[in-house]
């Protein structure tokens, strides 16, 4: 087990380091094969670890931070949560690496790209497997750094570089809160070990648990693009599409959900924190879904849907349903990676056109993209019997079964969101794949890229078997997670079927609404309408509720104003001018005093005598 865990981390690190240091000297094929092999080797290790898994394992490899009583060793912890996530991450990242080889085939800067992808996998696995909080934080910042560098991969365009900076700075706001939370926990318990902290939560007063829980929630908000720190994710789509699929859909953005699930035994002790998590999740889910309704950019639709789906996971965590949240996290990783990779195929075939209103008819031209993409959209929409249906329903059921007005209203909001989700998913399908044909450009690389979609589509569609509802024989995840699940309430099969019926009806209703509005003849009208000026509501949704403008007005503009004052008034006005004044004053005094040194001995002697007289006079005055 020790060996598997060590190798799982070391393979991507080795691949990343070698490509970073020697990637440009080695043959391109070798680098590409090497980075893919590194991730797949990690996957093999993860599977072997899963096969030999008997119970939670914790392995210490060596010392890392060690000063007085502060101990943060390189210590990995494998439990059902980290095991299932690391298997998923290795698998999805492995597929995306293969896809990237073909997607980035015409890019000259492949060494940097693949080095960063591999380092990202390393950092993500560190984050997942860490036993103590500083190691987790190391991975947390590592993925943030790789995300920043990959979003700004095409840095020569200043928009991309700005998007990278925006992502980094926004997530740092959350990271700061997380760091404060970690330091506070250390001050309270004198240890960083997550299992130990989780076991000692009940010792603390309720208020402190709430405060630390909120700090962790803010950290998760930044990383997982939750309201109000979600503005970076749509902009992060400036990166290459495989990066969007890997970092901004499947793995990194779900780190916040992972963090909260990991710490749930601790933070779940406070009902206020749980409610805050649930409210954040519910509002974010609704926000993302409404914004996705109006987007024109294919990748931005998916970005907002990612925000919305992570909101669902947060809602699940807030309702105490860790199993359901992790279930949705896993299935979402499959189908959202699938959708992004499908979008990458579409964008390649459309000569890098991303406006969905300029697409159409791709169903016949790219059937191998269409069918997996349709499967992904069905999962996203929660069409019955797909993986997304079961995972979303398990979250909805958990929220429904929580008592209180708050959770009931969040349940209704989540149902409304489910309806919107189904609507925008099929709006995307109708606009991109149906209607009149446009010219597409297919080549050899596209063929391989499309085949990568197939395993993801199968996993998305049949992901439901991971955790079937009780009346269908019970779930694998449920029993696997059994001992560490949060406060999930048992429920009867009849209730379960009724809840699923409601969700299924809404999903189908959304599909029909999308068909009515975007299918067949009305699609032409919509495309014609799209070139006219958008209505205020439409513009409101298109611009993400104008959150960017709000932040610009309340944060950036005052900051710039303050900086202007500090620069022109304080720095130039006070500091520079006072120094200038002092130096010119000294210069004037020096020139004035300099007139004294005439070079005439007589004057010097006279001055000397006068000085002596003064000293003598002073001494005389002292004595008398």
């Amino acid at each position: 087990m020790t060996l598997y865990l060590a190798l799982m981390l070391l393979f991507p690190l080795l691949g990343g380091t070698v490509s970073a240091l020697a990637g440009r000297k080695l043959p391109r094929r070798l680098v590409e094969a090497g980075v893919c092999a590194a991730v797949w080797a990690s996957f093999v290790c993860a599977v072997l670890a899963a096969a030999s898994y008997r119970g939670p394992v914790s392995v210490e490899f060596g010392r890392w931070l060690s000063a007085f009583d502060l101990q943060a060793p390189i210590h990995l912890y494998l439990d059902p949560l980290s095991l299932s996530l690391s298997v998923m991450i290795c698998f999805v990242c492995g597929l995306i690496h293969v896809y990237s080889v073909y997607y980035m085939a015409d890019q000259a800067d492949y060494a940097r790209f693949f080095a960063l992808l591999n380092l990202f996998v390393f950092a993500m696995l560190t984050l997942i497997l860490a036993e103590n909080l500083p190691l987790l934080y190391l991975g947390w910042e590592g993925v943030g750094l790789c995300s920043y560098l990959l979003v700004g991969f095409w840095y020569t365009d200043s928009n991309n570089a700005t998007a990278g900076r925006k992502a980094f700075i926004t997530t740092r706001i959350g990271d700061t809160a997380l760091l404060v939370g970690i330091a506070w926990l250390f001050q309270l318990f004198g240890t960083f070990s997550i299992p130990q902290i989780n076991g000692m939560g009940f010792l603390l007063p309720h208020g402190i648990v709430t405060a630390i829980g909120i700090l962790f929630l803010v950290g998760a908000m930044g990383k997982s693009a939750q309201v109000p720190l979600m503005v970076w994710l749509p902009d992060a789509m400036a990166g290459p599409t495989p990066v969007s699929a890997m970092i901004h859909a499947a793995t990194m953005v779900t780190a916040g959900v992972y963090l909260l699930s990991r710490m749930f035994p601790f933070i779940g002790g406070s009902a206020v924190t749980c409610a805050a998590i649930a409210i954040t999740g519910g509002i974010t889910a609704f926000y993302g879904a409404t914004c996705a309704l109006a987007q024109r950019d294919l990748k931005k639709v998916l970005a907002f849907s990612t925000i919305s789906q992570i909101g669902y996971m947060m809602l699940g965590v807030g309702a105490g349903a860790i199993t359901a949240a992790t279930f949705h996290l896993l299935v979402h990783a499959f189908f959202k990676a699938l959708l992004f990779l499908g979008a990458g195929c579409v964008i390649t075939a459309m000569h890098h056109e991303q406006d969905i209103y300029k697409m159409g008819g791709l169903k016949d031209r790219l059937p191998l993209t269409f069918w997996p993409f349709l499967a992904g959209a069905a999962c996203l929409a929660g069409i019955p019997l797909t993986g997304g249906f079961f995972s979303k329903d398990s979250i909805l059921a958990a929220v429904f079964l929580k008592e209180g007005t708050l959770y009931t209203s969040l349940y209704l909001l989540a149902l409304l969101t489910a309806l919107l989700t189904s609507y925008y998913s099929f709006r995307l399908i109708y606009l991109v794949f149906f209607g009149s044909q446009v010219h597409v450009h297919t080549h050899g690389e596209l063929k391989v890229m499309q085949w990568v979609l197939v395993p993801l589509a199968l996993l998305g569609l049949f992901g439901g078997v991971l955790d079937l509802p009780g009346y269908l024989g019970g779930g694998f995840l449920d029993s696997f997670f059994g001992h560490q699940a949060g406060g999930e309430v048992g429920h009867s099969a009849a209730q379960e079927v009724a809840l699923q019926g409601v969700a299924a009806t809404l999903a189908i209703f959304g599909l029909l609404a999308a068909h009515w509005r975007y299918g067949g003849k009305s699609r032409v009208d919509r495309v014609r309408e799209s070139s006219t000026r958008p209505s205020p509501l439409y513009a409101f949704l298109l611009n993400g509720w104008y959150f960017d403008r709000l932040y610009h007005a309340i944060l950036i503009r005052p900051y710039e104003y303050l900086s202007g004052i500090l620069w022109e008034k304080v720095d130039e006005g006070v500091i520079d001018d006072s120094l200038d004044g002092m130096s010119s004053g000294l210069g004037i005094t020096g020139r004035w005093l300099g007139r004294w040194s005439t070079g005439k001995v007589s004057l010097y002697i006279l001055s000397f005598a006068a000085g002596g007289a003064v000293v003598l006079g002073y001494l005389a005055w002292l004595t008398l």
Partner: protein
Amino acid sequence: MIIPFYHVLILASLLFGMGLACVVAWRTNVIMMLIGIEIMLNSVMLTFVEGSARWGIADGQLFALMLIALTSAEVSLALAMVVYLHRRKQSVNTDDYGSMNG
């Protein structure tokens, strides 16, 4: 001891003041300035000797002897420089030597 201590001190002060006045006032001739300096030094020596006599310790007298030696050396050096300066500018007026003007 016939002469009171204070009388000697007053004499020394008077000598010092006159020497200083000579140095300050007679700037047109550097030799006269040197003489003024000598007078001032002599007043100092007088003070030393008187102090030595007053407290019965030989240190003051020893120091006076050393000052005599020092002064003779100083005067020989200074007069050599005066000769040199006179050769350069045909003048012993100190105001003609203003090249150290700041």
